[in-house]
Structure formats: structure tokens, C-alpha cells
């Protein structure tokens, strides 16, 4: 199966063999947009007009991100690099999502194990004497109700994991949480107001499976954002540091022009 090798077009479900693109394709891209090695580190190609549809948007900088983060293959991954489909309504038109994070898959282990145990409980009903006084259709009803409750429990836990996301975009970091499926919590901080970023990896499983918390201190009204139990916290910190540096460069350039 032919797959795109342009790193900008890699979606989570695209199979990626090598984390680095072939040299020839880079040379072709460079010649197309006339990039020199000196301006390779420039985050955004500002010399090109935005209206030009042939302009490859941010062709160099995402490569840096891929170098830091690698690639994601599964859309159910808790570490989605440059997701193609995932988006949120508060996103600006020109804002690009670099990384979307969910809690590490291991955090689901507890409820999955509990669900499996719950699934086997109806088989115990046959051995429970107090249920034998009920007619068979009543017993069926109890079992059906139990299975639905089990499904609801697992579904609610899955939704809690799936829709609680931490997003790092080209402009800001965003934390979207849903508590008990009913309350939405949205927190964001622009990259230029981020002051400190720290991480902590705790416990045997955290150390073994490499997941932990990332705490982002900001100078804005929401003074801290906590990404909890996310995979590869050191890579996330590295990415945020890189993005902050790029943001500072941009601001310096703006200041220099003025």
C-alpha cells in the first residue's frame, strides 16, 4: 500500500516506517520553496505570501516536532502527534495542533479489570440460592439489567478517558476536561505566558511505562495547568520549551522590525 511520505500529511493512522523523511524528498521540497540551510530553523516561512496556495505551510518546523515526538500510528493512542482529524471549537483557523494527549492507557486498567469481573457476576447468580425463588424470566431481567449497568459503567469510564484531552497547538496549550460527563472544564494558556514547566513521574508503573504529570505555570489568570498521567512527559516538556523559544524568536523579530 502506498503511503504518503510527506510528514505534514501523516495522520495518526498512517503507517510510518522511518521517523525521518528520505533525503531526496527534503531536497525536492527545499528546492521548491527555495529554502537555504541558514533559514532551516525559521519556524514559519513569512517571506512567502499566505494567499499563495502552493506555499507549503510550516514545512520545516513540524519536522522538528516529529524529530522530538516521533509518530503516532493509532487514533486511540494517548499520544497523538500532529492529529489530522482531532479538533476543538475554540481553535483558531490558523492554529495548528502539534500534539494531543490523553491519559496513559494504563490508567484504564482498573476500570477494565472491574468491568471484566462485573461481566462474570451473572454466572454466579445460578449459584445464589436467594435468586432461585424467582421465575426464570425475572432472572433474565435481573441479568439484562446487570449487563446494561456494566456497559454503562465501562462506557462512562471510556468517555471520561477519551474526551479528556490536553492539546498543544502552535499558539497555546489547552486542557479540556469533562467531570462526570456533565461538567466541562476548559483551560488554556498562550505559549508566551508560560513561565515554568515541570514534570513528575511517580510509582513503579509510572517509571516502568513512562507516564507522569506535567505542570505548566503561567503568568495568566489561570496560573497553572496540570496534564495528569500523560505518556512521555519529558518529550512534552521538550516540545513546550521548543515552542516557547520559537515564540520568543517571533516576538524578537517583531520587536526588531519595529
Amino acid at each position, binding site marked *: 500500500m502506498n503511503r504518503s511520505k510527506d510528514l505534514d500529511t501523516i495522520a495518526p493512522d498512517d503507517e510510518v516506517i522511518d521517523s525521518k523523511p528520505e533525503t531526496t524528498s527534503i531536497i525536492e521540497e527545499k528546492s521548491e520553496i527555495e529554502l537555504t540551510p541558514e533559514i532551516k530553523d525559521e519556524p514559519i516561512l513569512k517571506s512567502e505570501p499566505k494567499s499563495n496556495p502552493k506555499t507549503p505551510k510550516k514545512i520545516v518546523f513540524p519536522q522538528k516536532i516529529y524529530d522530538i515526538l516521533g509518530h503516532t500510528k493509532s487514533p486511540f493512542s494517548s499520544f497523538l502527534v500532529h492529529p489530522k482529524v*482531532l479538533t476543538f471549537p475554540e481553535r483558531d483557523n490558523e492554529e495548528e495542533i502539534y500534539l494531543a494527549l490523553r491519559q496513559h492507557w494504563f490508567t484504564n486498567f482498573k476500570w477494565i479489570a472491574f468491568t471484566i469481573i462485573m461481566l462474570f457476576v451473572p454466572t454466579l447468580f445460578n449459584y445464589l440460592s436467594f435468586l432461585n425463588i424467582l421465575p426464570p424470566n425475572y432472572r433474565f*431481567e435481573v441479568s439484562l439489567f446487570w449487563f446494561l449497568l456494566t456497559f454503562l459503567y465501562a462506557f462512562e469510564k471510556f468517555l471520561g478517558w477519551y474526551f479528556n484531552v490536553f492539546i498543544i497547538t502552535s499558539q497555546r496549550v489547552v486542557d479540556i476536561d469533562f467531570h462526570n460527563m456533565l461538567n466541562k472544564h476548559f483551560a488554556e494558556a498562550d505559549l508566551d505566558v508560560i513561565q515554568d514547566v515541570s514534570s513528575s513521574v511517580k510509582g513503579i508503573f509510572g517509571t516502568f511505562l513512562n507516564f507522569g504529570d506535567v505542570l505548566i505555570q503561567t503568568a495568566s489568570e489561570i496560573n497553572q495547568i496540570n496534564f495528569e498521567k500523560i505518556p512521555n512527559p519529558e518529550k512534552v516538556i521538550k516540545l513546550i520549551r521548543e515552542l516557547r523559544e520559537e515564540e520568543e524568536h517571533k516576538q524578537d523579530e517583531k520587536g526588531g522590525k519595529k
Partner: protein
Amino acid sequence: MSPDFLTGNWLTYFLLIQKIFFILCSIFYFIFAAIVVRQTISMSKNITDKFNPVIVIFSYIHLILAAFLILSTIAL
């Protein structure tokens, strides 16, 4: 107290009370399943991803099963 109850027909009353209890539970469960559908749709709008339609379909299947639960309880 009726003599039937004393002579062992108490199971009929017990099952009747249980049936009413089941019907009430299944109605509440159906309401809750409807809330889950609504919340799932709301969450899907807040975070758009590839598998959102599948998740919404699952919540609808759950709602249908909850409706089936009411019907089967009434038919007891």
C-alpha cells in the same frame, strides 16, 4: 391480612412488588441512557475526532437496549 398471604400466596404479591420496582428502575435507567446520549453528542461537538460517530452510535444502541428493558419488564 388476607388468608392467601398466610397460606403461601405471598410470592404473587412479592413478584408484583418486584415487577413495579423493576419497571420504575428501568424507566429511570432509560432517562439516564437518554442523558448519556445527549452528553455524548455534546462531548463529540466539543472534541471532534475520528471515532466520535462510533461512540454516538454506541450510546444510541444503549438507549435502545434501555427501551427494550422497559418493554421486557412490562411483559413479565
